[in-house]
């Protein structure tokens, strides 16, 4: 059975008990802030153009306020007096099969949780917070798109979301180490595995060992140049991704986060460094401690911040002339708008590339590439994902850049698809790849 059929079958089989369970979970995810948000929308509609889905397909369903109203209608009906007394007046709707279907379409099918609408909301509603609550409720009703759920299940079962075995991971690391030694001419260049007491535990996106080994090699080369005391772990805890951020089942997200915490404790490292991944950074830096309901006894930072420190402290030196091509930067939403890492990557790129040009808009106002929010893992929405990425494609074209740099492997994948779909003819690279190529003794 296809994912589409499976979800539709589940929708048809929903019972009153499912709706009640969904509503209970939805209610449990709401705090004072979210309750205020749900009372604050004035339906001005000015958020419409802030959404890349709406920009590329200006239909009613793509307006952020329309997506929000789908959620708010159920909130009003079940949790407010006016919604119970005069539902028609205030637009309240009961949770039923039609509404569940509308929720799935709105929060999984038409939203990458990028949060650009929040910045442009006249009131300031943090819409992704409400959409995450809705995704959690749908999950409780068994309505998480199966392919998205499968990604989480794989991570829970195998310790990484691509089911890479320990043997394959270790072999890949050793192979990249040999490549690094050849590239640097230094037989002592290492990709340390399970080095107890190392200052830094470095984590990567499984796409790196699986599809982009040069990306991991680039990060390792930067560590080598900086003479960093770092390690990878051979066991669970090397995968920085956490699709629990997208299926919004906090318990599962917490279990995945626990892999990182356990690896830090096992190896006794001081700092957890997150490789180039937007949602991985947001998960580890901002959400992980909330999922586990306790603070980490270690520091979490992005490799972008680390490379920025290396340059500032003179631990690495780069020659921008090694990158004469025009380079632009795509800001991953979870790293920038939701993560607060805005300037480090810019300082690093300005130092490492001769011709760096910004997209417009940029930083916290950037447009999502379309691959966020778990969209890359939900095949049923592929056409919408690629269409919504048209905004990013246009931004890239406007810069006339030959190289698009992005510190996120999900964005790399989406930009790669946009490159083909919109015939952009650009190279897609990570920041570490740019820095590694620009390194000088």
């Amino acid at each position, binding site marked *: 059975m296809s994912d589409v059929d499976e979800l539709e079958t589940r929708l048809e089989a929903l019972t009153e008990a499912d709706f009640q369970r969904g509503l209970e979970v939805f209610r449990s995810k709401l705090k004072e802030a979210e309750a205020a948000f749900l009372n604050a929308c004035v339906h001005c509609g000015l958020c419409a153009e802030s959404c890349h889905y709406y920009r590329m397909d200006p239909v009613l369903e793509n307006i952020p306020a329309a997506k929000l109203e789908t959620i708010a209608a159920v909130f009003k009906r079940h949790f407010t007096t006016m919604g119970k007394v005069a539902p028609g007046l205030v637009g309240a709707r009961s949770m039923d099969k039609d509404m569940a279907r509308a929720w799935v379409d709105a929060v999984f099918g038409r939203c990458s949780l990028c949060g650009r609408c*929040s910045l442009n909301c006249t009131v300031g509603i943090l819409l992704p917070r409400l959409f995450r609550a809705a995704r959690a409720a749908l999950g409780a009703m068994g309505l998480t798109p199966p392919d998205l759920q499968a990604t989480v299940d794989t991570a829970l079962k195998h310790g990484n979301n691509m089911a890479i075995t320990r043997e394959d991971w270790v072999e890949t690391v050793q192979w990249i180490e040999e490549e690094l030694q050849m590239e640097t001419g230094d037989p002592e260049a290492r990709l340390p595995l399970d080095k107890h007491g190392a200052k830094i535990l470095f984590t990567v996106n499984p796409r790196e060992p699986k599809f982009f080994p040069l990306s991991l090699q680039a990060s390792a080369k930067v560590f080598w140049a900086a003479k960093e005391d770092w390690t990878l772990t051979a066991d669970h805890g090397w995968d920085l991704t956490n699709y629990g951020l997208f299926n919004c089942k906090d318990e599962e997200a917490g279990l995945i986060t626990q892999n990182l915490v356990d690896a830090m404790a096992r190896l006794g490292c001081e700092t957890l460094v997150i490789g180039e991944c937007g949602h991985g950074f947001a998960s580890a830096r901002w959400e992980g401690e909330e999922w586990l309901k306790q603070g980490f006894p270690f520091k979490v930072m992005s490799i972008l911040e680390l490379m920025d420190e290396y340059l500032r402290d003179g631990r690495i030196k780069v020659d921008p002339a090694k990158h004469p091509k025009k380079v632009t930067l795509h800001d991953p939403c979870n790293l920038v708008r939701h993560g607060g890492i805005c300037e480090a990557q810019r300082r690093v790129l300005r130092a490492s590339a001769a011709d760096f040009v910004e997209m417009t808009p940029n930083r916290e106002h950037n447009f999502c590439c379309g691959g966020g929010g778990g969209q890359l893992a939900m095949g049923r929405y592929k056409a919408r994902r690629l269409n919504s990425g048209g905004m990013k494609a246009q931004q890239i074209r406007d810069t006339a850049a030959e190289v698009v740099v992005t510190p996120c492997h999900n964005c790399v994948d989406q930009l790669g698809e946009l490159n083909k779909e919109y015939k952009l003819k650009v190279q897609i690279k990570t920041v570490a790849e740019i820095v590694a190529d620009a390194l000088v003794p």
Partner: protein
Amino acid sequence: MNPLLAGVMLATIWCAGALVVLYMRTKAFGVRQLHSRPAGDARAGVRYAFTQGMAPQAKESVRMNPLSYLAGMLYHTGIFAGLALLGLKLSGLGTPRVLGIVALLGATGGIALLGKRMFKAHLRGISCPDDFVSNLLATGFAALAGITCFLPSFASLWLIETIALLIYAPLGKIRHCLFFFPTRYHFGAFFGRRGVLPPTA
């Protein structure tokens, strides 16, 4: 005491009381305890949210819809002028015409926004009856406040309209007069804590 003025007083008490109840019900949802270490200053984010963060240069949505923004600003200014006039009226201090003009301008903003909601399909699509009722009541309030400054015989009608507005305010979307503030606060605190706002560049 004029029964209409008494009615306004009672309606004001109802409105304030109901808004307090709504706020308390929201507070009852509880506060989210945060464990991650801040990267920025939540208070700076809140200050930004209530100041520069509301300016057109901070919002693409406003820059792309300048007429709607202007209408909205006029509308709200007019409503506040109407409230000021109401306060003066209740205090027996008269109704200055300059405020009346502001209220009338505000009403034109309200009418413009109502027209937009009626005739733009997408805006109609995200609207429910409450949106129209709320607009009509608030626009009527501003308009009658302005008219009364020039034609005092409209005072009774204005006060009746005021009573209706105050009774309805906590029941529909006019409640955003309260929830705007906690929403804006949480917006600023969230982005401030994460070091996103105020913007660095």
